[in-house]
């Protein structure tokens, strides 16, 4: 259970490990641990066992195996899965059983992955505040009183607690990278258009991106190579060829220009332990041959609520009918958030869209000086699990929704790739996430920098002690 997906795939292909033993082992672990962690909404027990038996037969027959052959895969419940309940974390979709797979899921299965189940998530992938609708509160395996992050909560938990080998998540403004940081795993948001959104329930058409959540950067490269590429069912997917991401990992860091993004290194905004861990990671990259300097984009301080205007007005449009017809089935936070976004004046939305275009232009200029940018993924480690019952005044609304600076939003807003990977632990033993960002379609650089950093550190190999759960 402690092997990475890449290691496991190699052992399965070498007939050193049986896919059936692997799947059975993960199912046993889910039975023991998930009643407390709540990573899964649906476990596909019989289907997974049948898939494992078939995978084993294929190995024994000496068939040509796909790159994910025999690997137990779990996916956020935002992805359609043929014949399997798909709720998107909402009771509105209770009973929805798609007849086809989302393209990303279909490609993973074609590459040999075995679907183990569907993972818990916040309602409609819309962030924090409301209670989870299924399975109970998702819990951080490093401390069961702490949050696992949102919205790909179950994906973060399942990888950290070894309840699956590889996972898929979705990231609108940080929903892969946030849970990756808080649970101490690797999570990659690809360039917008790199991975098909077909069959992935939308929140924001212009921001949503599906991607891998894994134990290691090598696993992320392995999974991305399978799910990326043009899809006629999603016309916005790029026709650029998909690089061999695994091959690209071999190049070193000599001469790679790394920029530490100043705006997210402010001690008044982020915990000292987080900043120290990220500075240490920057130094480590320098030791590995990278040319590390300071990067800055002052516009990051000036965006206010513009990122929220874009994502939430997109979300309001996607939910308009259900908001009117079935409002009581939404949590109060997401309902009020989408209702407010439904009423935004067009001039305000238009201004935010122009701000995004300007921001993207300035963001891309940074990559003329740097190959990658780095920052903390989150300014703090996971906090206590909290549910918010609503705001009672203008001042509280200003404090909560007034446009605080988020390190995960720049890459999402620009449509460029970004990855979170572990870079340390706090004094109370919670994981700290390092974010690596690059220009459009340069996942190869993000993965290369992350891989070489991981090869020289052991943070990604740390696992939560869960023996007390059963």
């Amino acid at each position, binding site marked *: 259970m402690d092997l990475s997906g890449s290691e496991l795939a190699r052992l399965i292909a070498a007939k050193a490990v049986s896919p059936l033993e692997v799947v059975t082992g993960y199912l046993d672990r889910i039975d023991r641990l998930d009643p407390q962690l709540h990573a899964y909404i649906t476990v596909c027990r019989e289907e997974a066992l049948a898939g494992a038996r078939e995978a084993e037969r294929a190995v024994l027959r000496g068939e040509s195996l796909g790159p994910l052959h025999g690997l137990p895969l779990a996916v956020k419940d935002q992805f359609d899965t043929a014949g399997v309940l798909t709720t998107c974390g909402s009771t509105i979709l209770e009973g929805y059983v798609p007849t086809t797979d989302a393209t990303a899921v279909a490609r993973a299965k074609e590459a040999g992955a075995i679907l183990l189940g569907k993972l818990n998530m916040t309602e409609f992938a819309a962030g924090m505040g409301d209670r989870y609708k299924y399975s109970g509160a998702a819990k951080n395996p490093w401390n069961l009183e702490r949050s696992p992050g949102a919205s790909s909560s179950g994906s973060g938990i399942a990888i950290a607690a070894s309840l699956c080998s590889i996972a898929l998540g979705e990231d609108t403004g940080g929903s892969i990278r946030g849970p990756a940081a808080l649970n101490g795993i690797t999570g990659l948001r690809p360039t*917008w*258009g790199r991975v098909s959104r077909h069959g992935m329930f939308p929140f924001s058409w*212009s921001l949503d991106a599906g991607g891998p959540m894994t134990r290691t950067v090598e696993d992320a490269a392995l999974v991305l190579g399978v799910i990326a590429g043009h899809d006629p069912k999603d016309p916005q997917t*790029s*026709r*650029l060829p998909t690089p061999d991401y695994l091959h690209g990992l071999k190049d070193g860091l000599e001469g790679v220009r790394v920029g530490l993004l100043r705006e997210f290194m402010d001690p008044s905004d982020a915990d000292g332990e987080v900043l120290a861990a990220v500075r240490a990671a920057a130094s480590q990259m320098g030791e590995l041959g990278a040319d590390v300097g300071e990067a800055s984009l002052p516009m990051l301080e*000036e*965006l*206010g*609520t*513009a990122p*929220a*205007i874009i994502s*939430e007005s997109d979300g309001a449009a996607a939910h*308009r009918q259900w*908001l*009117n017809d079935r*409002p009581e089935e939404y949590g*109060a936070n997401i*309902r*009020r*958030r989408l*209702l*407010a*976004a*439904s*009423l*935004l*004046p067009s001039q*305000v939305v*238009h*201004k*935010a*869209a*122009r*701000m*995004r*275009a*300007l921001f*993207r*232009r300035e963001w*891309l200029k940074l990559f003329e000086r740097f190959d990658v940018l780095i920052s903390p993924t989150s300014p703090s480690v996971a906090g206590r699990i909290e549910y918010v019952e*609503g*705001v*009672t*005044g*203008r001042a*509280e*609304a*200003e404090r909560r*929704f*007034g*446009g605080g600076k988020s390190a995960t939003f720049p890459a999402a807003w620009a*449509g460029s790739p970004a990855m979170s990977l572990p870079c340390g632990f706090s004094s109370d033993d919670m994981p700290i996430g390092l974010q690596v960002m690059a*220009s*459009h*379609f340069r996942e190869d650089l993000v993965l290369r920098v992350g891989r070489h950093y991981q090869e020289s550190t052991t943070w990604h190999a740390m696992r939560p002690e869960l023996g007390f759960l059963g």
Partner: protein
Amino acid sequence: MSDLTFQEVAALAKASGVVVSEDDLEEVTHRLNVTITGVEEFSHPDLDSVNPLPFRPLEEVDDS
């Protein structure tokens, strides 16, 4: 711009065909006011000349 009142937001919702219950009206109003004022101060010399496209055209990406 001064904040919208509860009554103005209720009227805006009605005109837009958006159903906002009495229970939700106060928070929706506060959220809306905070969101609108959150971009009021932003200014940039190119703000009115840039096209509000979410992403670079794919052919531009192909050249990069």
